[in-house]
């Protein structure tokens, strides 16, 4: 009954306490501290990320198609266009000695080509039909203008298979071989072309050997396994009071350790630009020492007046049944982990300096999954409590990643790479609508880059 009076009375009166204070002055102090309206950065990042992803996919598709084209089989020669007048570009002279022609073609593997390329141009056809001879091609290696024609020469030469000419009646020839689509090996300098192709042609090497020069060119795509370690600056704001284990209630900035590892794919262009993306797992570790104090009311039987206490300035000695408190302090070590799976999309520029490459890159980070895990250990390192929160939020694109790296060509296609990296706003999830946090991660990384 008394309790009811007391409780009601306090409740009622405490609601109506009047505090005199200057509200206007307080607002003036408060106003500059209020958050300003944020710009819609996530949308900007969304478009930036989208464009970067499209560029990445386009680059990959281009490389894949390019590789496919260079590995096209000899059979495609059948689709090539005819040279209108080979004599315009070639010096074609009939070989009168059939044996020589056979000998020349013995080592070639032309059967496949011949059976599909049943035709040749009129000029050659007439030569063959009249003379039943194979045209011999004489190159003029010293004339650079013929370098481009050399490939055309090759194709005409391959068509002129002895066996085909002998076995296939001219009247059955229906298609005219063309030259326009013949894959031409791209070499950087005419000198290289001359050294790689001309000697083969002048020696009248077999076609398949010549075509084999046209290997898939280096794709400029590389794979980078990376490992990083760094420091995290976390800003945590929370109105959450429910999760004891994770201790997310402290509104403060803390410096934590972070590790990440992942695999990136990188596409380089000749002008030094590169596009890099991949997937990586970041783990942020937080260790807290925590002491839990349990206070229990106990009753002590004291027959002597030795128990005393201070109260209102007086020291009171007491005996008999005395109410006291039992204070128990239990020490825990808490280990919280925050894991996130991220896809950075980086656009960068790289400069070659001998065996070293120095690069800078920047781009958005797509956060695809987040997970909190927390453990509490007692003094004997036994886990006494554990908790886990999976954050089932949508993809987040609100972070930016910048890196500077240097890599060293270790071996033909292997580079060792190292650098520093700064990720701003990484993993800023909102948990239970009460916790907001922002991570700024500065880290160093090492990795290997394997060129494909």
């Amino acid at each position: 009954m008394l309790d009811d009076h007391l409780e009601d009375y306090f409740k009622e009166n405490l609601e109506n306490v009047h505090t005199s204070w200057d509200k206007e002055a307080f607002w003036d102090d408060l106003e500059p501290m209020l958050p300003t309206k944020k710009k819609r950065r996530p949308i900007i990042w969304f478009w930036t990320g989208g464009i970067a992803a499209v560029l990445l996919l386009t680059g990959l598709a281009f490389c894949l198609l390019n590789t496919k084209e260079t590995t096209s089989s000899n059979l495609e020669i059948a689709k090539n266009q005819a040279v209108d007048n080979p004599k315009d570009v070639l010096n074609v002279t009939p070989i009168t000695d059939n044996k020589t022609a056979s000998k020349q073609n013995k080592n070639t593997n032309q059967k496949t080509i011949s059976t599909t390329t049943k035709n040749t141009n009129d000029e050659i056809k007439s030569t063959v039909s009249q003379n039943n001879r194979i045209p011999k091609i004489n190159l003029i290696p010293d004339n650079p203008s013929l370098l481009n024609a050399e490939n055309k020469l090759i194709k005409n030469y391959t068509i002129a298979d002895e066996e085909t000419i002998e076995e296939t009646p001219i009247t059955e020839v229906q298609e005219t071989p063309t030259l326009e689509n013949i894959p031409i090996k791209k070499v950087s300098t005419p000198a290289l072309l001359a050294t790689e192709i001309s000697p083969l042609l002048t020696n009248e090497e077999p076609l398949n050997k010549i075509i084999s020069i046209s290997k898939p060119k280096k794709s400029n795509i590389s794979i980078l396994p990376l490992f990083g370690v760094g420091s995290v600056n976390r800003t945590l704001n929370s109105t959450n009071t429910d999760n004891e284990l994770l201790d997310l209630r402290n509104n403060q900035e803390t410096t934590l350790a972070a590790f990440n590892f992942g695999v990136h794919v990188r596409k380089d262009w000749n002008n030094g630009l590169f596009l890099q993306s991949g997937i990586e797992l970041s783990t942020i570790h937080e260790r807290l020492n925590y002491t839990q104090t349990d206070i229990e009311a106990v009753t002590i039987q004291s027959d002597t007046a030795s128990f005393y206490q201070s109260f209102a300035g007086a020291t009171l000695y007491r005996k008999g049944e005395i109410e006291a408190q039992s204070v128990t302090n239990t020490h825990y070590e808490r280990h919280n982990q925050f894991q996130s799976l991220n896809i950075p999309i980086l656009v960068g520029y790289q400069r070659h300096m001998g065996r070293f490459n120095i690069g800078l890159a920047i781009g958005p980070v797509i956060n695809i999954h987040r997970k909190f895990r927390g453990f509490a250990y007692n003094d004997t390192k036994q886990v006494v409590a554990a908790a886990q929160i999976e954050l089932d939020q949508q993809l987040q694109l609100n972070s930016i990643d910048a890196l500077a790296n240097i890599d060293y060509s270790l071996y033909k296609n292997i580079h060792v790479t190292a650098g520093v990296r700064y990720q701003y706003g990484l993993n800023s999830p909102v948990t239970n609508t009460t916790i907001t946090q922002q991570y700024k991660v500065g880290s160093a990384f090492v990795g290997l880059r394997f060129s494909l």
Partner: protein
Amino acid sequence: MELIKLLNRCIDGDRVSQKEFYLLTADRLMNICRRYTSNLSDAKDMLQNTYIQIFKNLKKFDPNKGHLDAWLAKIAINEALQLLRKRKTQLIKEAHSAEQFELSATPSILEKLQADDVLQLLHEIPEIYRVVFNLNIVEGFSHQEIAELLDIPIGTSRSHLSRAKKALRTKIEQQRKIKSC
């Protein structure tokens, strides 16, 4: 409806609306903060943090899930407790036993006390008792919730409340004696 419009303008960062919202709610929130600290400066710090959190998280407030007043009060209480922790205030102190002074606090005595006297009385009891008393009696939190908020066992919360009541009764009786002299 007007309130929702005001909230939306606050979310959009309209300072005039934010001030209007502040003027509407400041007294009530200050009142809550004052219950947790006897120091006006500390109460202002609590209130400042409270408004920062309110305007930061206002867009997350869902009127369907609860009343705005309760949401604001929860933030204010949380900020008050956080500030007490930050100031390294020893919430758990060796408490004075008020057993030997236990007297009855009758309605007649209570009637003589003004609202400000009540607050003064509250500030005279140990802080941990005051916090538990506020949370349970005034804010209506259960012992389970208080235990989670303060990281203390439920039994301790009950014991603190009991002691808070005893201490308050003692204080009331002391005041009665002073006034009767």
